[in-house]
């Protein structure tokens, strides 16, 4: 019996988190929601109701005439121009998303920010942030955002930040299941408010290029098979997410797609301060090495492992397909 009321609002975002959520499989999205006992009160891209009917629902929720177990926010909160929030309005209501989200979040048992825009501002807060976009409870890396540092929803949790641009459908669906079952606690969130179920991993874990990484066999251009860390901007060794363990769209990931991890689950990924697709270096050494390793050791180990690089990896790293297959090992050397 569906009895966990969920409202989904889209603020300043691209809708891509919803589009990605629709890729949920085995079972598909709507079946997973109903199986979990989630009653979708309204979702702008998916629901039947429009107009007046939705306006009444929203004001019933805001006034507490109807209970709101879960408020999902997709997209950043536009505060501009000049603090009016007019850059993103909930159509038909004459009110900004900013003001609706403020009102509704005080009524919700749980507030979930879906995607990096909602969590931290994301790409919507890129460049000079023309729309003055912020996240629900963070503005970039800083706590605060729309709802403020001290915000706790009625259920006692801060905003749950399912960051990612976009999110993996199962990151969201698992987090929802855990909320419905009352199993999500503060300990299940990391320092940035993200569910640890997927952020206690690094993108580097399970990357098919790990063997190249071991020997610093690096690709020089995109499409080649080598590790993308040294030249092509990959920061998978610092990025918190299980993208190479829990794959996308039936088996993909950024690295499997042949391009760099840009750490889209992290606050402020949108403004790296250098080009996304090349690795900034100081004196030939990439900046932003793995966070839990002394730099000097990294440099020393790299030059050692480079020297030990097998010919197979040297060849394959610079090709877009395998040139040399791994050798077969025979137990009986004298056949």
């Amino acid at each position: 019996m569906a009895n966990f009321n969920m409202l989904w609002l889209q603020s300043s975002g691209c809708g891509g988190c919803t589009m990605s959520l629709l890729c949920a499989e085995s079972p598909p999205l709507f079946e997973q929601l109903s199986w979990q006992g989630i009653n979708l009160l309204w979702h702008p891209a998916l629901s039947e109701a429009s107009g007046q009917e939705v306006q009444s629902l929203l004001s019933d929720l805001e006034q507490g005439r109807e209970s709101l177990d879960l408020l999902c926010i997709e997209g950043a909160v536009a505060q501009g121009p000049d603090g009016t929030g007019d850059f993103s309005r909930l159509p038909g209501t004459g009110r900004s998303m900013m003001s609706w989200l403020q009102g509704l979040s005080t009524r919700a048992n749980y507030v979930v920010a879906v995607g990096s825009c909602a969590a931290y501002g994301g790409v919507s807060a890129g460049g000079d942030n023309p729309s003055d976009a912020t996240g629900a409870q963070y503005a970039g890396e800083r706590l605060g955002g729309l709802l403020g540092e001290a915000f706790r929803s009625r259920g006692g949790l801060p905003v749950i930040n399912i960051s990612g641009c976009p999110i993996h459908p199962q990151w969201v669906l698992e987090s929802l299941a855990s909320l419905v079952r009352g199993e999500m606690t503060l300990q299940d969130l990391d320092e940035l408010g993200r569910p640890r179920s997927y952020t206690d991993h690094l993108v580097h874990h399970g990357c098919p290029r790990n063997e190249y990484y071991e020997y610093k066999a690096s690709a020089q251009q995109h499409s080649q098979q080598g590790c993308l860390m040294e030249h092509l901007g990959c920061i998978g060794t610092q990025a918190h997410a299980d993208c190479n363990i829990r794959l996308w769209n039936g088996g993909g990931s950024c690295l499997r797609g042949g391009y760099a991890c840009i750490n889209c689950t992290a606050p402020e990924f949108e403004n790296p301060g250098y080009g996304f697709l090349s690795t900034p270096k100081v004196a030939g050494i990439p900046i932003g090495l793995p966070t839990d390793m002394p730099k000097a050791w990294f440099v020393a180990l790299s030059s050692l492992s480079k020297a030990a690089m097998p010919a197979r990896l040297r060849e394959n790293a610079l090709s877009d397909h395998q040139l040399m297959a791994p050798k077969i090992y025979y137990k009986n050397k004298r056949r």
Partner: protein
Amino acid sequence: MTQRIIGPFSRVEGNLELRLQIKEDRVAEARVSSQMYRGFEQMLEGKKPIDALVITPRICGICSVSQSVAAARALADLTGAKPPPNGVLAANLVHACENLADLFTHFYLFFMPDFANPAYRNEAWYGRVAERFRAVSGSAAGDALSARAELLHLMGLLAGKWPHTLAIQPGGSTRSIDASERLRLLTVLRRFRAFLEKTTFGTSLESIVELSQQDQWHQLSEPETSDCGRFFALSRNLKLDQLGRGGNAFMSFGGHAFEGESLFAAGLYTDRWQPLEADAIAEDVSHSWMQASPPRHPREGATKPTGMDDNGYSWCKAPRLNGRVIEVGALARQSVNGNPLALDLLRSGGANVQSRILMRLWEMARLLLAMENWAELLVPGEPFFEAGLASPQDGEGVGMVEAARGSLGHWMRVRNGLIDRYQIIAPTTWNFSPRDADGQPGALEQALSNAPVRKQDDENPVAVQHIVRSFDPCMACTVH
């Protein structure tokens, strides 16, 4: 005359508000307003040109790849990059996959649920149709989601993920596939074909693409067993071919070319085909919440939002071609392409709710067949990517493509190695533009005028909803 403000508008992408003047039982005048502004064109200024590949797809999560392709084309134009054949095929496959998924998602999740609207509860067909097409809980939604997710395995294979891939670049595709992956790709396409033939069309894709007259189609798709047939029955019952009549100027930027042949031609169609004069595009801001300026070509354009003031009523600009209001989308694309079925539809009822939806359905069949062909042409072992040439310090690049919803253009200018101007015109910007300085309403504004407002409709006339959704608007793209 009464005024109605309609919003929020569900099952469209993004924040849309309508302001309707209603006289007796008809819409006399409509104003279409985009209620969100994010500022991508401003964000892009000062960035490295290649970073457009990261930023622009995030304008829109529903046609993210179309944005990537437009950005990659603009960059290729700037750098002179030339992708190898495999790279072109892979990019075509990824792009067409998104177009196809988009058309498919629109039909099942956005458009058809309107027939489960309680306004129709007294119709004889209501029960059966609502059971099939009701949003979220209808049987079609579940079927469609599974099929869609499996189709998008193509993205997992060729693009890493969807949306927001970086696989498509000016030099081709970063993802090369081997022989076994190519077979997987063909399997994905085969499975989706089976769904389309059995559930959507009730007939083979080949017989759909060969159609030249709408009447032939009615006979092919059974109203009891195929969703397309169900649509025909509803369309006839509700006279959707008389609803949402548009203007008569249609544009397409064309695309999906391989080795000199384009799947879809570029051009303008009025009563005949004409070449596209891309230089005659200009964006008018007289009714937008933008700083006043004369209409400008996107090569020279700027985006300077003001607050919501009384001079405007939308964050959307009003693009015009030679001062003309233009409709874009599948029907427009196929008219420009000289498709006999599209021309037959235009002859009999012009652009309307039915003809827009039929050409969207037709394109699904066409795209899947093209994709099967491209997948066969891939040559594992041959290159997919050409090393990117260095981007010049100064220069301009243009990328013009067709997204599912119509023509999408990116205009980029680089100074001192950094982006100094980036202007984007998205399909829905054309269709959902506000009025221009001559007072000409945009394409949807025109299509809405005269729409019936039935007595049983409350605040939100169902005919208006059909018309709006027949364009499949994406408001996130519109204003970006």
